[in-house]
């Protein structure tokens, strides 16, 4: 039963979406059924997010309790999740059922601090803590890329040399000083790079990758719909 019902749900959902693609939703039942399936998908995805939050809290708080190595970081994770999430989900007005209870304890003029709107605690934390931290982490890549390029980017064989030359040309072409430098050799050179390198060789390779990946995804979807692939249920 635990296996059969998910298999039936997966089969029906998949079949409805496949067939709905070919029919007008205003005229044919299956077209309208697609809308219902898609709304369910959105709702289930919302629950999946909640499940993720519960999971991260459970796993990390258990490690904090056991004082495992690096428990300080786990504690920081738990605190961060709670500090960011709680003000965001609190009601922003006393008109709702939850709001009526909440605002008997807290003053109603603090309502703008809750929710996710402009000026809320969530908004402030996002703009002044989370966003700068994420930007900093990403910016540090420039340093690692420079170091890695110096140590590892070697013309060891023909393929590596080709990659190295292409990367150098594209890096030059993607910045104004590089473009100006390339134009010293020919005024058309940057346009040729765009035309032949990016819209020529690059497109040919990318299409192969995209079509290959799409065929793989279609095959995997078919396996799930037909119940051959069951790893999503934790079974091999």
């Amino acid at each position, binding site marked *: 039963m635990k296996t059969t019902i998910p298999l039936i749900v997966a089969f029906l959902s998949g079949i409805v979406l496949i067939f709905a693609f070919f029919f007008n939703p205003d005229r044919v039942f299956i077209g309208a059924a697609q809308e219902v399936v898609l709304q369910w998908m959105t709702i289930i995805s919302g629950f999946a997010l909640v499940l993720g939050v519960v999971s991260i809290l459970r796993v990390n708080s258990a490690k904090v309790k056991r004082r495992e190595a690096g428990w300080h970081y786990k504690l920081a994770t738990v605190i961060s999740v709670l500090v960011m999430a709680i003000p965001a989900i609190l009601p922003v007005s006393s008109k709702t059922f939850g709001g009526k209870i909440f605002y008997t304890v807290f003053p109603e003029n603090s309502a703008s601090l809750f*929710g996710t709107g402009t000026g809320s605690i969530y908004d402030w934390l996002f703009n002044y803590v989370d966003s700068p931290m994420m930007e900093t982490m990403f910016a540090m890549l*420039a340093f690692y890329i420079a170091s890695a*390029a110096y140590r590892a*980017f*070697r013309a060891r064989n023909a393929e590596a040399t080709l990659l190295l030359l292409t990367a150098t040309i594209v890096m030059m072409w993607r910045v104004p000083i590089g473009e100006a430098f390339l134009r010293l050799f020919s005024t058309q050179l940057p346009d040729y790079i765009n035309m032949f390198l990016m819209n020529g060789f690059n497109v040919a390779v990318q299409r192969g990758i995209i079509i290959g990946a799409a065929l793989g995804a279609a095959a995997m979807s078919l396996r799930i719909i037909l119940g051959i692939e069951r790893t999503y249920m934790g079974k091999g």
Partner: protein
Amino acid sequence: MTIWDKISAIDRRWIYLAMAISIFIPTIVVIRFPVEITVESRQLYDAVESLPDSSVVMLTFDYYPSTLAETEPMSIAALRQLFRKNMKVVTISHIPLGGPSIAERVTRQIAEEFGKVYGIDYVNLGYKANYVAVMHGLASSIEAIFPSDWSGTPLKEIPMMQTIKCYRDIKFIFSVSDNATIDYWISIVNAQYGVPVGGGVTAVSAPKMYSFVEAGQLTGLLGGMKGAAEYEKLVGVEGTATRGMDAQSLAHFLIIALVIIGNIGFFATKHRQG
């Protein structure tokens, strides 16, 4: 130990220092080389310009704060162009962490410049989980997927949304993305529902997008900070991307120099060892 052995064994902190200096110098000395417009950027700009004034355009904020330097200038330049043409802008995000907040902050800032009013000229729908389902769902009813906007106001109470019910009412989708969501805007919304999609992506994602531009499925493309700088130039307002071009130019040249030096050292050592 030869000079090349010494260079090969250079402490990585010197490389970090050189990179820091190359990024820092342009903040003091403005070099400003002219930004050349690529065909793909021009195509996107022209596509938006060719839309009738007051058309409805959906602008997506599908990026995380980590790539703000590349993506935010694209959104800002796009908003300037859209508001200048009195377009009605619907913003949406498929990024749970911050996407709608970025959309709110950036759109309000540019809307103030043009004297645009929330609910009349622009609306922020916010975020809903599962972007594939959301993209399909918007085809039949925006209100079914987003009963209220990001701040919780029911769509029924927003004047602008009274005439915008589904993709049929949207003339163009301008997707700014740092991940695979733009692929779905193309493969679902453009391919299945016929809405023109154009957009900007990070430099690292741009090569993949060229194939969609070539196929006519993506109407124009902005690639990375350079693409954003090109759009700023087209729109006629220099922003952070144009200013960032100097730092990126020096950083690229430093990396190229490091690759050249590293390879000379590699071949010199190989030659010496026979």
